[in-house]
């Protein structure tokens, strides 16, 4: 049955695009989560919603307008976070509601919600065309290349910005570049999970992988593996069960997270009991 499904062009495109998106989301997600900006993706996705509405209203390709608006929104968010005393999560909330409100107003002016708009809200990975797939792969390649080049500097800034600045890293410029890259990632990933579930792809694999990883690179690789597996299994399962792919993928990510945490909790308990028994044995001996 699997081979039969793989013969469909739309499934092939969905799988290739999905794996590429899961890789960039895991890479960006690791840095966002460790910067305590887990909801950044959600905020930028809602800003991108405003960009999509602008594109549809103006008769432009909505993904490009969403990209432009999301990058500007992310830079605005970073500016808000740095130049005011507003905490990161509050800055995200402000950006989120602003983007969403602008989108809703433009949509109401242009005559209400359309099928296309729903595909951006809830994801439509199986509707990805060859052209879309080429764009997704190109953007993913560029994002991965840039993150690899900046990896060590980003790691330092993510760990502690003050120490990084004293070491000679241009932290302000690097932060702006990073949030712009994160915005591009979020807009690219919208085709997979949609605006409403984008946070899942950014946060859940990193949190799950952080239980395994001994280092940052290992965490990113494990996170990518978890995310890509969930995407592949989710696409197959959604085809077989006739469910929506985005919801299925996110449910699989949640199942992974809960399972890994339960297994690690059981292991820790087992180790504690073992250590207590060993201590008692030594005391008795």
């Amino acid at each position, binding site marked *: 049955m699997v081979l039969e499904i793989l013969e469909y062009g739309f499934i092939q495109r969905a799988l290739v695009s999905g794996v590429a998106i899961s890789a960039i989301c895991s890479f960006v997600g*690791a840095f966002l*989560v*460790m*910067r*305590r900006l887990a909801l950044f993706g959600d905020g930028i996705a809602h800003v991108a919603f405003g960009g999509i509405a602008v594109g549809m209203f103006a008769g432009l390709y909505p993904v490009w307008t969403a990209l432009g608006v999301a990058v500007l929104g992310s830079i605005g968010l970073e500016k808000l976070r740095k130049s005011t005393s507003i905490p990161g999560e509050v800055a995200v909330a402000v950006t989120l509601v602003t983007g969403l409100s602008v989108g809703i107003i433009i949509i109401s002016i242009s005559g209400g919600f359309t099928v296309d708009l729903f595909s951006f809200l809830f994801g439509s990975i199986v509707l990805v065309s060859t052209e879309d797939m080429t764009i997704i792969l190109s953007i993913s390649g560029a994002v991965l290349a840039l993150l690899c080049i900046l990896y*060590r*500097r980003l*790691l*330092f800034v993510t*760990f*502690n910005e*003050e*120490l*990084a*600045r*004293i*070491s*000679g*890293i241009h932290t302000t410029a690097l932060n702006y570049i990073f949030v712009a890259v994160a915005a591009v990632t979020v807009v690219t990933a919208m085709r997979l999970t949609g605006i409403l579930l984008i946070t899942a792809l950014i946060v859940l694999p990193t*949190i799950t*992988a*952080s239980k395994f*990883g*001994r*280092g*940052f690179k*290992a*965490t990113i690789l494990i996170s990518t593996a978890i995310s890509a597996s969930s995407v592949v299994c989710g696409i197959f399962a959604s085809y077989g069960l006739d469910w929506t792919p985005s919801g299925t993928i996110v449910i699989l990510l949640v199942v992974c997270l809960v399972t890994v945490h339960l297994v690690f909790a059981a292991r820790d308990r087992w180790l504690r009991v073992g250590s207590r028994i060993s201590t008692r044995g030594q005391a008795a001996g």
Partner: protein
Amino acid sequence: MLTPIVDVENLTVQFGDNVVVDNVSVSVGRGEILGVLGPNGAGKSCMLRAMLGLLPYRGRVSFFGTGPEDKKHILPLVGYVPQKIDHEPLFPATVHDIVSMGVVTRQRRVQGLALLERSGLDWRNTGEPHTEREMVESRSEDCQTCLPCEDPHTEREMVESALETVGLSPIRDRRIGELSGGQRQRVFIAQSLVRDPLLMIMDEPVSNMDVESQSLVYSAIRQAARKHKVTVIISMHDLDTLREHTNAVMFLNRSLIYHGDTDAFFADRDRVKMYTEASMHAGGHTHGV
């Protein structure tokens, strides 16, 4: 007269109406270990952070005789160990990862050294090697070199050496979040050392360490100061440690009370008593004397 490594003039740090550092002036020479002493809330951390540009201040701070416009080129020559580092508890980086961060900007260090040369400061007169051959030779016989580190093998050696200096080699693969406060402090000292700094600014770097680790760290600091003429500014509370490891003292209680030779500080019993009483009054504690 030799150019001071650190020259602070009329430094004032203020939050609203609250003046936390008041009009402090101090100069620190090459290879000097300056102990910054003061009760809790005396402004030690604020002064050190302001010197590094991490807090807004009034006055003038100069490193290696350069102007404020050169500060961004000079800072890579400065190793900073903060009192406490705030990071995400889940941060999945190992001890080795954190220490390796110190060599990310080696190229900037080279630019900083070039700036010192253009300014006429003979930074090479610090026991550091001159030619590339000397650098390679010195690498094999000593842990801290001034090589620009592009070769990953060399970089690994430098990181391993810094880890060994502070006794962290056995736990190099442990996650930073799993370490005790004292072990974490040693990680940040190793990160500072691996940068091969000409100046180290350390804010109570051993406050959570056991005696053995403290001794290891102070021995590394003294070796850096004596052998490589690294200048060290270190804030602390412990009078015995101050007497044993520093050659100059700066007693701060918002404003500067004393700056001078360590022996001269301890020769004046009234001054030591003043510090002890100020510490008691501030709710802190002192050791020694």
